[in-house]
């Protein structure tokens, strides 16, 4: 029977091409607009590392002195750590994996004199960073664990930089000049571009990943500058890099991997022990002194990865869809009422109300699917527009299978909902009215 209804729907579309196109355009625009907005939202909010997002924790310590506070975050915890704290908590062996982290950058000086130097962003980290965040290697591997204690000038670069400098060859063992310092390449990672850039949400939620990774242990030796935020609350005489290392300025980040609740609990206890130790030497004097562990999902929420503009747009786009659907209901009423005489004949020939109802719902569904397809095409166009409008999101605006299915499902669901009332109305009409004179 379904194939019969589909055939009838096709005939009815052919008979009312303008009315039908109006409906398809209305549904298509509604779906197109809401899918564009939903895609951006969905992609921004998407878990960038679903296998581990609940095991990776960003560490925050409440290091403010008495009377100081921070109104930038909801729980008032500072976003970053001081260098001494990052160094000290790194001694804990409770976490499965751990890494200190600092956003930095260098002038890269190519070997050949013809190529001019250029600037690349970089990250100072510990050797477990790549394992923790599941960064795939193309050549080589991360540096040895001991380098995190006794620093040496080693570096991991990404494949894009490797292509630029070494034509994509295996560059492990070769030299990379960063400013005036020469580093030995130990590994090359494949393309790695988590979106959002969850491991550092301070410096642009959707910025590119760094192309250079060096040991964090080199900080005091080469006075690696911070390219990220530096927040201070205490009046200190910070006249040199060494002063900064010893200061209460917060400029380092710290991530740990805690595979289960027990380990998390043990780690919290360890940190609390550390804090009370520090309190003895006059730090952590605020009554709120403590630790906050936030996993990737919580960390994204804290940092409001999805801007509030998007929520407004989601609301507006659903109202837009609602208008499109109301429009469609009106047009469907017109279309179905035009067909009332035929329905009368069908009723006389033995079609039941439910059969007429289903026939019209099939009719609407076909229009819905066509509208959904148009909506998908318009949505792609919309995303293209979003890409040009928001250059920083360009890598994350694309529809995956889930979204495509969702688009068709919304189109189908919305048009069936829209079709309910007209279909109900038409199947309730008294057929005899239309039979006498056509």
């Amino acid at each position, binding site marked *: 029977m379904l194939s019969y209804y589909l055939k009838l729907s096709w005939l009815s579309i052919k008979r009312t091409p303008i*009315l039908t196109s*109006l409906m398809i*355009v*209305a549904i298509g*625009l509604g779906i197109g*607009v809401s899918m564009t907005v939903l895609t951006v939202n969905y992609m921004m909010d998407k878990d960038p590392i679903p296998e581990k997002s609940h095991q990776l924790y960003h560490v925050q310590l409440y290091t403010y002195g008495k*009377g*100081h*506070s921070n109104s930038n975050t909801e729980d008032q915890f500072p976003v970053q750590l001081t260098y001494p704290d990052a160094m000290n908590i790194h001694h804990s062996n409770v976490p499965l994996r751990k890494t200190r982290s600092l956003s930095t950058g*260098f*002038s890269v*000086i190519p070997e050949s004199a013809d190529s*001019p*130097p*250029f*600037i690349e962003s970089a990250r100072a980290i510990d050797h477990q960073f790549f394992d923790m965040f599941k960064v795939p290697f193309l050549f080589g591997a991360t540096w040895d664990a001991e380098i995190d204690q006794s620093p040496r000038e080693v570096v991991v670069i990404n494949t894009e930089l490797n292509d630029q400098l070494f034509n994509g060859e295996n560059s492990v063992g070769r030299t990379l000049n960063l*400013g*005036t310092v020469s580093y030995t390449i130990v590994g090359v990672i494949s393309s790695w571009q988590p979106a959002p850039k969850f491991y550092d949400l301070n410096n642009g939620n959707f910025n590119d990943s760094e192309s250079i990774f060096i040991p964090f242990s080199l900080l005091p030796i080469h006075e690696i*500058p911070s390219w990220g935020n530096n927040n201070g609350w205490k*009046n*200190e*005489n*910070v*006249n*040199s890099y060494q002063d900064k290392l010893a200061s209460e300025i917060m400029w380092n980040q710290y991530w740990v991997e805690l595979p289960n609740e027990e380990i998390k609990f043990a780690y919290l206890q360890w940190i609390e022990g550390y804090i009370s130790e520090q309190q003895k030497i006059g730090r952590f004097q605020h009554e709120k002194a403590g630790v906050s562990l936030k996993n990737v999902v919580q960390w994204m929420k804290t940092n409001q990865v999805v*801007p*509030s*503009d998007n*929520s*407004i*747009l989601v*609301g*507006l*786009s659903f*109202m*837009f869809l*609602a*208008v*499109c659907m*109301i*429009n469609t*209901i*009106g*047009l469907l*009423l*017109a279309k179905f*009422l*035009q067909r009332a005489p035929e329905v009368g004949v069908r009723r006389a020939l033995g079609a039941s109300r439910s059969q007429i109802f289903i026939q019209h719902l099939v009719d609407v569904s076909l229009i819905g699917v066509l509208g959904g397809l148009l909506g998908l095409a318009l949505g792609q166009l919309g995303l293209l*527009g*979003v890409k040009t*409008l*928001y*250059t920083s999101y360009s890598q994350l605006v694309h529809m995956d299978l889930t979204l495509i299915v969702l688009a068709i499902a919304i189109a189908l669901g919305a048009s069936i909902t829209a079709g309910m*009332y007209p279909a109900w*109305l038409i199947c309730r009409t008294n057929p005899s009215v239309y039979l006498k*004179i056509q």
Partner: protein
Amino acid sequence: MFEIKPILSALLRHKSSTLLIILQIAITFAVVVNGTSIIKQRMDLMSRDTGLVNDKLITLNINSFGKNSDQESNIRADLELLRSLPGVVDAAPMNQIPLSGSGDSSGVAVSQEAHDNQEVTGAGMYRGDSHMLNTLGVKLVAGRLFSEDEVTYTSERPDVKALIITQSLADNLFPNGDALGKLLYFGGGIQVPIVGIVEHMSGSWVSWSSFDNNVLMPMVQLQNFRRYLIRAEDKQAANHLLGEVEKLLIERNRERVVTGVRSMDELIERAYSDDSAMMTILWIVVILLVLITALGIVGIVSFNVNQRIKQIGTRRALGATKADILRYFVTENLLITSLGLFVGIMMTVGFNVFLADQFEMPEFNWALIPIGTLIMFVIGIVSVWLPAQRASKVSPAIATQSI
């Protein structure tokens, strides 16, 4: 001559399609008015005066990596070069550039005690040499500029002897208007006198609440990373410099990389890119929505006309003129639009209360309601015109035909 009563009873007989148009007009109105309200807010935000000579300014970053034993002479040589270029009015080394989205800020207070009690006002900290104000093009309204010998070149914590602040910060800290000559406290016992006040100068972060609160200091930091701001004679000269300046600076000293060569106009564009993107999207949504609603009205009125052809013919046969028929449909539409707008205004107010509650939106622009109402009436009349015109052309002869 409006025959409202028969129209009303006809509308009551077509309850569902009337209700649908009313609902559609209501939601469209709510979205259009709230959307336009957001657009207007963003427009106001973007058209804020920066206090700078926007179109004449270009900026760049220097990242030096060589043995920077003598950064001070390097900076002086760079600036000498830049100031000597044809078309350049002035140039200054700066730690941060307005509207660039990065820089330094600090809490300042009117006394040491106030600072200790956290009674501080956030302000942007702009450090540069004595050419900084002239290069920015900000207008001094009180006091004096920095003198050459007040400028310190240092990599350490400086000993700043004078400050110039923006009027906005002055008004914030000293509501009595006596800021000039007062001391500003930075904590840790640092206190500096205010020697001048500039009328207005935008800060670095467009969405920061202290956007207009800025402090200028006579000091050049000796670091591997620094910024230069160049003021050209006019826009043309600035555009010319954009292409030239990197090459000239690298030629003078090769042990560095020049990045981020941009005009101030580009910085402003980048700073507001999210806002302008939001505006574009809202425009598209508003225009499409109006279009859809108009098409919907055309569709439904056309259907109504088709349904009532015989009735229209009868009316014509009974002496109704074409204008009467036209007026009938237009009046009907005006009635529906009014009902829709009534519901729409209710929704708009409710929607806005919700939005303002959720997203800390600035105050709603109530003037948009009458404007939106007018627009919706125009749209209603335009979209009813075509099918109504067709209705008015129905021949009276139809009345006697049996179809």
